[in-house]
């Protein structure tokens, strides 16, 4: 209820933000275009360093963007994920059902029927606008102390299980490199992009006065 009141009570700030955003975009476009043209005109000047091999790029290219282009071929399921959640020790730090412990909570808080997704708490597998962010972080940073040891299939499975726990996918769901980026997270569009940045621009026009 508090959040609801706050939303209603702040239309002027929203409006101001939108106008500013439009203004910034109008200012930014010509400058960026000019910048890009000059960048494009550059050819290698120093010739220092070497060209990476395709294999090197494949191995290093682990940041998964919203389109999921970097996802490796693989396949996982909610069922496999529920087993891995115990066998890989996730439950020890995140709680048996993802309810948190010495590591962050992984299951949404009960916010009642038809809840606003933002009321579920700061829980990655429900708040994140993209399924790829969840896959990416499990893959790069889990389990603690054994990062990088999970196979692609295991990461698909664990991701599927966390989405099942949060009612994002149904029981029995299987995920792969094609279906994972297609998941419609509840906050897919329900967030605000950081504004365009320009050198010498105020942090936020008119803040706080």
């Amino acid at each position, binding site marked *: 209820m508090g959040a609801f*009141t*706050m939303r209603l*009570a*702040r239309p002027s700030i*929203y409006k101001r*933000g*939108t106008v500013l*955003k439009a203004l910034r975009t109008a200012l*930014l476009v010509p400058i*960026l275009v000019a*910048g*890009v043209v000059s*960048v*494009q005109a*550059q*050819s*290698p000047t*120093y010739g*220092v*360093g070497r*060209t*990476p091999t395709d294999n*090197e*790029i494949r191995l*290093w*290219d682990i*940041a*998964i*963007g*919203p*389109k999921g282009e970097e996802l490796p071929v693989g396949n996982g399921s909610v069922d496999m994920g529920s087993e891995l959640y115990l066998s890989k020790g996730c439950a020890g730090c995140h709680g048996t059902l993802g309810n948190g412990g010495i590591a962050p909570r992984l299951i949404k808080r009960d916010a009642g029927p038809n809840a606003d997704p933002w009321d579920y708490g700061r829980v*990655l597998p429900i*708040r*994140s606008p993209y399924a*790829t*962010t969840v896959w*990416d*972080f499990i893959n*790069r*940073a889990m389990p*603690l*102390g054994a*990062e*990088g040891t999970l196979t692609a299939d295991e990461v698909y499975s664990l991701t599927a299980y966390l989405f099942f726990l949060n009612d994002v996918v149904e029981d029995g769901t299987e995920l792969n490199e094609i279906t994972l980026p297609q998941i419609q997270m509840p906050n897919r569009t329900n*967030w*605000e*992009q*950081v*504004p365009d*940045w*320009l*050198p*010498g*621009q*105020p*942090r*936020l026009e008119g*803040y*706080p*006065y």
Partner: protein
Amino acid sequence: MSQKKTDRREFLKRSAAVAGAVGLGAAKPALGQDHEHTPVAPEPGAFIRGSDEMTAYGSRSRFVDSVRIPHGGRESPDAFGLDFHIATPLQDSVGEITPSSLHYMGTTRGSFVPDIDPDEHRLMIHGMVDNPIVFSMEDLKRMPSVTRKHFIECAGNRSRSSHTTVQETHGMTSNAEWTGVLLSTVLKEAGVHADADWVVAEGVEEVKGASSIPMAKAMDDCLLCYGMNGEPVRPQQGFPLRLLAPGFEGIFNVKWLRRIKVVDEYYMTYNDFGHLSRDPVNAALGYQIGPKSVITYPSGGQQLPGAGFYEIGGLAWSGGGRVSRVEISTDGGRSWTDADIRGTAEPMAHTRFSFEWDWDGSECELQSRCIDEIGQIQPSRQQALDFWSTDGERATFVKGQDNSIQPWRVASDGGVHNAIS
């Protein structure tokens, strides 16, 4: 101003003999209470015996005990041995540079500090570029370099009423001289595609912390740093290579940097997720550090020996550019006077200010206010809270990175206290 100078001359005439004894540091004897000293050499044997270690790499005096402390309510190292947040002792700072060994530290999630052999370290530039490149450290040191002073500040650097010292309220910022290659230099070398507008910068530590950075920033002043304060970057600061995104919140300054990927959209990495907001105002404030300053002497927990002359000193900085002015109030924000800017203010760098102050011994409140070159003014806590308040709800928390003014209350007994309510 002239009144202040006259007061100071009068004051110096009265107390020339003891003025030199009052300087930096916390507990000094009260004026007139120092005892007579006979100039003698130290006791026989009271010298620092030479050693191979002292010859090779010097250390500070055993009488200097200024240290960093864990910050944010979590131990560093924690039960897992991870370092999370460690705050610098600003109360002891002089000049503008933070010694490398006292520089604040923050990590994504908490991290082990990787032990990287620089000969084995590589930086890859790839993605939407004509020529992907892998650089060894030796390669990078062949490239044209720059040396610049820049601060870094953690987004969580905020004063709370439970904090007693400036190390707790403001210790998650530091300032160093950084040496390296402009990111724009290597991006131009790689040939960025016209429709690329973000880069993802990624570290090599076990979390492999990664942040999305706008292309305009990457092309403006981001630095690939291998040098810090005249020597290689320290392991806790990203040895052998870190990114510096001057004026952006700490997490954008990716340490142990191994990869820059050029992309065409915001990647929503785990670090980026930390900034996620549905309020455009809040989102806008999760990026560039606002104008900020803090008085480091006198500051919370320090004890003034008595009424008389003091040089108020502190640091000011802004993510928006150079500090152009710093103002001081000794009456709780009712009146303001310009402080002196020491040295030359540099863009996105800590700038030291000072102010000559004759304390009359009565209770007062000291504040400093930073104004930067693009006209941004550091708000009072009240102003910041007013901004976040609504008709129905009084804000008690400054959202985004909190750059509000820090008040220090000087009690009549000379004790200095955090005056945040």
